């Protein structure tokens, strides 16, 4: 049998590409993290569904409803704190594009301070509710309201810890593949919290205030 005519010399042929230019570590991780974030958004879907079915008049058991305790302009201030925090993170990512370490740290620090302001306003709001005697035990409607808004606040809390960790890693490790990948996944996490907040603000706070 004659071997098939070929230009390839088996003694020198490369059977695989050693440079792996198709494998993109950062993109693989960010896509995986994006899918995780979408499943996190499904957690919010179940809480929105619970709030939807527990926001009828009878769900409040004759007690206070969001129309009695929501202050739209106060919560609007919270909204601006979160949006500005996301903007500051964005400017930090822009500094990353230019390999500007100081710019990244400033962006992360501003995002942290504004995110902490959001969380402080939220805790103050919850303390105010508690002082009015409104708690998760008041009624099913208030329960759904508090759980939904505080699950979002918990995401912000963990995001703030993550921002601190990334500031430390940027300062100690610099822009390695791992650190840059984590900055990108934190960017998605932080931006997704602002997107979820639009739903929470409009459909829980504002709609609750109207009805």
């Amino acid at each position: 049998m004659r071997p098939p005519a070929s230009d390839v010399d088996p003694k020198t042929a490369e059977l695989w590409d050693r440079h792996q230019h198709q494998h993109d570590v950062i993109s693989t991780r960010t896509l995986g993290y994006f899918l995780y974030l979408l499943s996190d958004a499904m957690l919010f879907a179940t809480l929105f569904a619970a709030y939807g079915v527990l926001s009828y008049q009878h769900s409040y058991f004759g007690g206070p409803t969001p129309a009695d305790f929501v202050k739209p302009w106060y919560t609007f201030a919270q909204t601006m704190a979160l949006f500005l925090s996301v903007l500051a993170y964005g400017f930090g990512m822009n500094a990353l594009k230019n390999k500007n370490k100081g710019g990244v740290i400033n962006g992360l620090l501003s995002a942290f301070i504004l995110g902490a302001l959001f969380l402080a306003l939220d805790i103050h709001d919850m303390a105010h509710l508690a002082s009015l005697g409104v708690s998760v035990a008041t009624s099913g409607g208030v329960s759904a309201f508090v759980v939904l808004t505080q699950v979002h606040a918990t995401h912000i809390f963990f995001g703030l810890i993550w921002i601190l960790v990334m500031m430390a890693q940027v300062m100690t490790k610099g822009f390695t593949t791992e650190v840059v990948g984590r900055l990108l996944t934190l960017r998605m996490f932080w931006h997704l919290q602002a997107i979820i907040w639009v739903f929470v603000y409009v459909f829980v706070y504002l709609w609750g205030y109207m009805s």
Partner: protein
Amino acid sequence: MSHGHDDPTLHPEVQMSTSRGYFLGFAISSVLMLVATFLVTSHSMPPFGLLMVISACAAIAIIAQIYFLLHIDTSEHNIWNAVALVLFMPLFLITIGLTWWMFSQLYLHTMIMPGMPAMVH
């Protein structure tokens, strides 16, 4: 999708950031939230119309944030994020919508709803 591996800051997900994009996403969603808050506090519209307007504000703000902040678009680099998000949306809406619909039917058939005429026995 081959790019330089020596320098992770050259990765397209880093390089696609622009200050203008972040600022536009921020400005559009802030203005829409301001409009929604103003309309709700001024009580100038009937409730159903108001609900439609603030829902539209929320929808546009979310689209602006997804496009300008998350950079989800149909470019070669982002197409799989876009596909995942598009396939996710029906799950999100069905979970909320069907649950709400089932319970609203349950309430309708088992108890007197507020604002409805009392049942005649």
